[in-house]
C-alpha cells in the first residue's frame, strides 16, 4: 500500500492485487468463464445447447432469471449477425456484454480527504461480514498512512464489541466502544473524538439487521441523521456489505436499506467460496450502486478493490 503523498485524493488500493482476486475466484474451479470454456471447448460452433449451458452458468452465478434471459437473447441476436460463429467469438461477446453491465455505474474508488474526518458507515443484514470488513478497511487505511478510528455501534449482538476490538488491535487503530445501548450515541462519540484528535477516517460498524424489522431500520436512519447533524458532509460513504453466497434476496435488501440510509457502495464478501456473487449484476442494473470492494477471506488482507473490467477478466481466467 502506498503512502499518501501530499495529494488530497487517494485510492484505497493503489495497486490492486490482481493475482489474489484471481486466486479468490478461481478457488472455485467452476467459475463462470472457465466453465464456459470447459463446456464449450471441443465445440467449434455455437448452438442451442451452448446457449443453454450459458444459461445454466449465468443462473447458477445468482445473476437472476431476467438478466440471464436478456443476455442470452442479446447473444442470440448478436450472433445471428456475426459471421464468426466460433465459440471463441461467442465468449468475447458475452464477456463484453457482462462487462458493459458492470460498467453502468461509475466507481473511481477515490476518497476525498479535503474534509476530515472522512466518515464511512457499514451496514448490512446479519452475518454478511460487516465487522470483518471494518477490520480489513481499517487495516488498509492505516497502511496508507491515515489515522483511523472505528466506532462500535453494534450494541445488540453478543460480544460485538469484543469482536471489533480484536480487529482494531490487529489493524492497529483506535476504537470507540462505549457501553451505551444507543448506537447513534456511539457514532456521535466516535466522531466527536475524531474531531478532537484529527483522525482522518472514521469507520462505523453497525449491527446486522434484517430489512423486515422496521424499528431496527429506523435505528439505522437515526445513526445517519446524528452523523449528518455533526458533519453536514457526512457520512461520506455508506457501504452495504452483502454476503456473496446470498441469492436474489440481496436485491430486496438493498431496496429496503436504501429507504433508510442510501448505500453509496456495495462490498460483496465470501467470494473465496464457490458462490459467484452474480447478484451484483442486478444491483448495479437496478439500483445503480457501484461495487467497491470484495471480500475473499477471513484474514485482514483479504479485501480487494472491485473493478468491473478486472472482475470480468478474472472470471474468464486465461
Amino acid at each position, binding site marked *: 500500500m502506498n503512502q499518501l503523498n501530499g495529494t488530497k485524493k487517494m485510492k484505497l488500493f493503489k495497486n490492486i492485487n490482481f493475482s489474489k482476486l484471481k486466486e479468490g475466484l478461481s478457488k472455485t474451479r467452476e467459475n463462470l468463464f472457465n466453465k464456459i470454456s470447459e463446456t464449450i471447448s471441443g465445440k467449434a460452433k455455437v448452438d442451442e445447447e451452448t446457449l443453454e449451458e450459458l444459461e445454466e452458468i449465468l443462473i447458477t452465478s445468482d445473476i437472476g432469471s431476467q438478466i440471464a434471459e436478456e443476455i442470452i437473447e442479446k447473444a442470440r441476436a448478436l450472433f445471428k449477425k456475426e459471421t464468426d460463429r466460433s465459440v471463441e467469438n461467442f465468449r468475447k461477446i458475452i464477456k463484453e456484454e457482462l462487462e458493459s453491465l458492470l460498467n453502468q455505474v461509475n466507481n473511481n474508488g477515490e476518497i476525498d480527504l479535503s474534509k476530515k474526518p472522512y466518515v464511512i458507515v457499514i451496514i448490512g443484514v446479519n452475518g454478511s461480514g460487516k465487522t470483518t470488513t471494518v477490520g480489513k478497511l481499517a487495516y488498509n487505511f492505516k497502511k496508507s498512512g491515515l489515522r483511523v478510528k472505528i466506532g462500535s455501534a453494534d450494541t445488540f449482538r*453478543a*460480544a460485538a464489541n*469484543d469482536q471489533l*476490538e480484536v480487529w482494531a488491535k490487529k489493524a492497529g487503530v483506535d476504537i470507540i466502544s462505549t457501553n451505551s445501548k444507543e448506537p447513534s450515541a456511539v457514532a456521535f462519540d466516535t466522531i466527536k473524538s475524531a474531531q478532537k484528535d484529527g483522525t482522518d477516517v472514521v469507520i462505523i460498524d453497525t449491527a446486522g439487521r434484517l430489512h423486515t424489522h422496521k424499528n431496527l431500520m429506523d435505528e439505522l436512519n437515526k445513526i445517519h441523521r446524528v452523523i449528518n447533524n455533526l458533519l453536514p458532509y457526512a457520512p461520506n460513504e455508506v457501504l452495504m456489505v452483502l454476503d456473496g*453466497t446470498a441469492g436474489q434476496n440481496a436485491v430486496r435488501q438493498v431496496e429496503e436499506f436504501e429507504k433508510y440510509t442510501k448505500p453509496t457502495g456495495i462490498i460483496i464478501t465470501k467470494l473465496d467460496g464457490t*458462490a459467484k456473487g452474480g447478484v451484483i449484476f442486478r444491483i448495479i442494473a437496478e439500483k445503480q450502486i457501484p461495487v467497491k470492494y470484495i471480500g475473499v477471506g*477471513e484474514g485482514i488482507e483479504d479485501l480487494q478493490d472491485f473493478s468491473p473490467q478486472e472482475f470480468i477478466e478474472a472470471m474468464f481466467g486465461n
Partner: protein
Amino acid sequence: MFEELTEKFERILKKVTGQGRLSEENISETLREIRRVLLDADVNYKVAKQFIEDVKVKALGKEVITSITPGQLITKIIYDELTRLLGSNGADIKLNSSGITTIMLIGLQGCGKTTFSAKLAGLLKSKKRDVLLVAADVYRPAAVNQLKILGKQIDVPVFSIDSCMEPVKIAEEAIEYARQNKLNTVIIDTAGRLHIDEEMMQEAAAIKAKVNPTETLFVVDSMTGQDAVNSAKAFHEKVDFDGIVITKLDGDSRGGCVLSIRSVVDRPVKFVSTGEKLDSIEVFYPDRLASRILGKGDIISLVEKAQKQVDEKEAEELQKKILSNKFDFDDFLKQIKMLKKMGSLKSIISMIPGVGSAIKNVDIDDKQLIKVEAIIQSMTKEERRNPKILNGSRRKRIARGSGNTIQDVNRLIKQFNEMQKMIKMINKQGGGRGMLNLKKFGLN
C-alpha cells in the same frame, strides 16, 4: 400483502383456464413461468429443471374435472410436489433417555450457528434437560465470548478452554465435563467454515468422529442462493449430518435454497430460526415453506378451503348475479357469512386469481366484518337490493339501528361501490370466462 407472484400466477392461470385436459401445449408456458418463479426464489437451476420435469409428467393428460379449472389443478400439483420434496412435518431430534445426548452444529460463516445453539439450549432446558454449551469456535474473534454471553442469558453453562486452539480437544473435554457434572445434553457450537476449505472440513469431521454426536445439524441461512447445493453436498459428504436448520426466516427471502438442499441431500429440516432473540426457534412446516417459495398469494389453501365450504348452487347463483352486474348487499352479506367460515377476508380475496391486483388498494379490514354484518342487517330489503337509494337520512337510520357511526356506514357503502366497480372490471376483462375460475372459490 400481495406479491408479484400472485400476479404472475394470475397470468398463468388465465392461460390455462377453461381447457379440458392438461396438454403439453396448454401447460408449457405455465411451466416456463413457474420455472422462472422458482429461479427467482433461489431454487437451484438444475433442481428447478428436474422439478418442472416431474410436475409435467404428473400433470400431462390429467383430465380436468368440471368442478376444477386446469389452472387450479396444475397449481395444486405444483404445490403438492413442492411440499412433498420439502419433507415431512417437524422431524424431531433424537434425545437419548439415558447417558449423554450430543448435538453438533456445523455450517458456513455467519449462517447463525452460535445463535441457534443457544436457542436450542434454551429449548431443551425448558424440556428439563441439563444442558452444556460448548464453545468450539476458536477462530472467529470473540466467538467464545459471544456464546458465553448467550449462555448467561438463558442460564446454561458454557464450556470453553482458554487459549486452546484445538476444537477436537475442547469437544472431547466438554463431554467429560458433562459426565462429571451430570449434564445429559451437550451442544457443540463450531466455527463457520467454507466447504472447500479442506483443512477446516477435516477438522469438523474429526470433531464428529471424536464425540460421535447423537445429532449433527447443518445450519443454513435462508437467504442463500444457487451455491446452496454445493455447500450442502460438501458438508454432507465430508461431515455427514442428520438434519437441517434454516435461519433468518424473519426476513423476506423466498427460501428456495431449502428445496435445492433437500434435492441433493436426503435429510429433513428439523428447526427454523426466525429472529435474533433466543426464543425465536420453531418447528418446520413444509407446506408453509412451499407457499413462501411460490409467493404469499396462497392459491392452494384457498382452493382447499373453498372446496370444503362453498355451496356449489349458491355459488352458481352468485356467479350469475355477478356476471350481470347485479351483485347487491344481500349477496355481500352472504359472502361475508361464507368468508367468516373461511378465514381472513382480504387474505382470501387476495388469493383469487384475477382479483389480486384489482383489490390491491381496496382497504378491507377483517375486524370490520362483524360491524359490516350489523350494518347490512339494519338495511331494508329494498335498500339491500338497490343501494343507490341510500341517501343521508337512510344512512343515519342504519347507523343508529346498527349501533355504528354514520362514517362507518359511509365507509361500507364506499367499499361496496368499489367492490362493484372491481367486479365490473373483472367482468369486462374476463368476458365472463374468468368467472368459471372464480366460482370455485365461492367468491365470484
